[in-house]
């Protein structure tokens, strides 16, 4: 019996629906696209790969593992020996590392216990690789029995005389150590190895083998933020002193590397002296991310088996609207404030200049009327100035036209602002490949569920509705990402409401305020600490993005940065997704958005000469209890 071919919908779910690396498993390696920063990672130096959830850290690290490299190189055993490096992947698992704390042992004993456990983990990883290597290249040379015995001794294990014996012994030792940790209060002494010593012994010995001479071994540590602080210090020490035979590639969320010192409190890890810092958002900014995203998505699109011919260029499936086109569409769907403004303007334009007026887009006419109103000018004077100083007005129009789109349908039902077009989707994702895949997947799914062909462009309406849904879904998910998720959700609901009101009522004000920075209120104090915790969690879990402010300073100092709500949420709230102007907030205000939203939102808007309307926009009614200070 032959199986039924997968429908387009099933194929889409399989290729795009698995936004998370962990869901793709084996296919992750096949679908891997090298990002622009990849060459930085494969040098023989320690690397810190910093990025938010969904930026592709796990994918990259897993694809650098020997298992990933094997699939990526066509599963050809004869090519393994040519690889310049061999990577061993390790994900820091909270459920494991959290066991290494408690009142049963003094802090220094936990340090020794964890260092020993980590020795076992790293050695096991290398020994598993050696077992795999031997299966694929059986003729490869081995260490002497004496070498294996010495390595076993460094781990306080009984003598073993081969890699497979040592692997068995290490596994057994981990199980015994597990029993020790599970009964740690019994106070039994266990022999502990010296931090890093067995790893050094193992890898330095391997370097003498001809097949590994000149090669590098990488320990690929993912989710470094899950280590306890003292555990980060232990691994920092290993990173600092990793030698020629091996190094570490560390994946960590922004602000997840909490401790920079080694076990020697006076010794810091400093970039570039000690490690290469690869900040994904910085390395993949602008066009580089667009090109990367294009490659990732095209690779997946090419795998869809369908009767229609898929366009080669993904951009063609996601057409956007220019601001001028969008104004026409938005204005048409309701009472047409822009059209009314244009009529008003035409009544003030002399007959001889009517051709100029007729050549103007609706949005520009609307802009002139709004400008005149906001600056107390007559339309006749405004028009005269426009005709006499075209370049000045061109700049003004360029600055304000996008913000005007938010006013055309403010307070109305349905789509109030379009979020459509490939470049808009790329901006909404803010260099987060998971978000972009989600936008593409959901758009195409809704598209075909509505009976449209897969090769036909997805309408701007559909793209916008999907973008709103994706924003809403990710907002709802925030509360489960961390124990403090509820605070992040509330912070986002507050900021979202503020930016939405600022956008809808920008007439006479600075347009497109989409960021904030914090007032300098001095250091220390409980408020400051609470604000720092809130901002750190918000950045780590992608509720907020942060950007280097005007004062370059400590990466961990929250005051040195500007912040924006992640643009993936902007279609849900309806505010500009672009990085533009910023406003000043105090720490109290930020905390107030969590604890007293109604009052605080009102206060912040009043600072910007806006009043908050009583009625919530439709999409926010869901969170009415929060906005009424009832949650």
């Amino acid at each position, binding site marked *: 019996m032959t199986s039924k071919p997968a429908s387009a919908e099933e194929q889409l779910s399989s290729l795009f629906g698995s936004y998370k690396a962990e869901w793709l498993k084996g296919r992750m390696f096949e679908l891997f696209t090298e990002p622009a920063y990849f060459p930085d990672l494969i040098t023989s130096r320690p690397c810190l790969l910093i990025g938010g959830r969904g930026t592709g850290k796990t994918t990259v690290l897993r694809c650098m593992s020997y298992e990933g490299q094997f699939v990526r190189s066509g599963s050809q055993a004869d090519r393994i020996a040519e690889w310049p490096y061999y990577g061993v992947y390790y994900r820091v698992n909270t459920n494991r590392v959290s066991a290494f704390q408690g009142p049963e042992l003094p802090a220094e004993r936990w340090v020794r216990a964890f260092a020993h456990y980590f020795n076992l983990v790293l050695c096991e990883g290398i020994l598993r690789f050696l077992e795999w290597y031997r299966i694929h290249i059986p003729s490869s040379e081995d260490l002497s029995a004496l070498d294996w015995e010495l390595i076993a001794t460094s781990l306080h294990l009984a003598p073993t005389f081969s890699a497979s014996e040592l692997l068995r012994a290490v596994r057994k030792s981990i199980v015994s150590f597990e029993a020790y940790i599970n009964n740690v209060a019994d106070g039994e002494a266990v022999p502990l190895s010296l931090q890093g010593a067995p790893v050094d012994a193992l890898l330095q010995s391997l370097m003498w083998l001809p097949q590994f001479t000149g090669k590098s071994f990488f320990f690929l540590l993912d989710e470094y933020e899950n280590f306890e602080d003292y555990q980060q210090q232990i691994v920092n020490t290993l990173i600092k002193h990793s030698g020629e035979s091996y190094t570490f590639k560390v994946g960590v969320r922004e602000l997840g590397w909490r401790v920079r010192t080694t076990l020697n409190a006076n010794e810091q890890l400093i970039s570039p002296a000690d490690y290469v810092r690869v900040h994904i958002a910085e390395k993949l900014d602008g066009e580089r991310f667009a090109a990367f995203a294009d490659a990732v998505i095209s690779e997946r699109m090419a795998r869809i088996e369908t009767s229609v011919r898929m366009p080669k260029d993904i951009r063609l499936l996601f057409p956007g609207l220019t601001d001028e086109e969008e104004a026409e569409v938005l204005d048409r769907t309701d009472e047409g404030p822009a059209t009314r403004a244009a009529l008003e303007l035409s009544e003030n334009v002399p007959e001889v200049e009517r051709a100029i007026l007729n050549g103007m887009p609706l949005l520009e006419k609307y802009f002139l009327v709004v400008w005149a109103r906001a600056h107390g000018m007559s339309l006749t004077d405004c028009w005269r100035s426009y005709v006499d100083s075209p370049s000045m007005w061109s700049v003004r129009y360029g600055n304000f036209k996008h913000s005007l789109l938010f006013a055309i349908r403010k307070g109305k039902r349905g789509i109030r602002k379009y979020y459509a077009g490939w470049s808009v989707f790329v901006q909404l994702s803010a260099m987060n490949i998971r978000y972009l895949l989600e936008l593409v997947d959901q758009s195409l799914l809704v598209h075909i569920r509505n009976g449209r062909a897969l090769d036909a462009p997805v309408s701007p309406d559909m793209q916008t509705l999907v973008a709103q849904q994706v924003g809403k879904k990710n907002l709802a*998910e925030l509360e489960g990402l961390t124990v403090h998720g509820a605070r992040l959700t509330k912070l986002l609901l507050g900021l979202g409401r503020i930016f939405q009101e600022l956008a809808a009522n920008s007439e006479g004000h600075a347009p497109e305020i989409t960021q904030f920075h914090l007032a300098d209120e001095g250091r220390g104090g409980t408020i400051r600490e609470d604000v720092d915790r809130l901002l750190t969690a918000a950045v780590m879990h992608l509720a907020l993005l942060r950007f280097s402010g005007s004062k370059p300073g400590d990466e961990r100092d929250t005051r040195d940065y500007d912040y924006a709500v992640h643009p993936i949420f902007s279609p849900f709230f309806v505010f500009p997704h672009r990085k533009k102007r910023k406003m000043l907030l105090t720490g109290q205000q930020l905390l107030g958005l969590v604890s007293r939203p109604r009052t605080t939102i009102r206060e912040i808007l009043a600072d910007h000469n806006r009043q908050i309307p009583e009625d919530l926009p439709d999409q926010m009614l869901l969170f009415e209890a929060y906005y009424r200070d009832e949650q």
Partner: protein
Amino acid sequence: MSSDRRLNERPLLTKVCDSVEDFSPEPDSSYILARSGEFRSAHSESWEEAARAINVRFCRVTSFGPSGFTIELNGRVEEVALRSSRQLSRLWQACGSGTVYLDITGLPHHVWAPLLRVGIASCNRLLVTYVEPRDYRFSQTPTEGEIFDLSEKISGVAAIPGFATLTDEGDDHFCFIPLLGFEGTRLAYILEHVQPPGERIVPVVGVPGFQPEYPFYAYLGNRSALTETHAWRNVRLAIANCPFSLFYLLEDIAAEYPGDSLKIAPIGTKPHALGAILFAVSSTRSVEIVYDHPIRKSSRTEGIARLLAYDVSGFVVR
């Protein structure tokens, strides 16, 4: 389900008392219990006097922290570390050689699970008792947009004392089995930590529930996470108040995923958590318990429903 297994090979060694007044411990037995903020944890008050008359000894857990607890035992207050088989074993020995009851109603998982782990090996006859609540007070039908504050509800993922798993071998091939409660945010949070492959998530819903409508609340509460991961397609059912049904189901799931290790999140009913712990203790497979340590509130439940006594020793040696 492996329907070929005969029913008598899968006994459910549970005594169900419709009212706590119907329950009486065996004469000369020991009874370990604790009173939490929940009303139902005080259920023994109604039968304690009668029990004392037949020489039942009560051992009360008077306080507990993350790493230990204090217990009144034979007129003395003992401190017991949770990560000490030696101390836990001594405690069980002090309970005598007869039947011992471990009442888990008022004890958190991180206390009763290590007690049980050692108790199974130390006691001649160990029964676990549990009293169902008459109802839950929190919103059983959370509306979309209601913000669920995890920080008020859980402490975070950490190993249950005595159940830490340090081997990483199964991390690439594992089946994740969340035992569902009503609070979907807890499932979402644990999924974020465990990061299981979508097709290898097998959620378990308690059916029949303590009340007929509870399974629907479980689906409703966990809807987002079940939909997002497509795990709704793999949902399995086990009687909500029966640890043994859950145990058998775990055996079946383990057989269906022969090469995988199992990660179980006991975030549903306490009897299901008991089944998971029994499975973890007795299975030869690699089993990891993933738990988020809820912060219990006195207002969580109300009233007292049935009392269930599970013959754990009888089950383990079956």
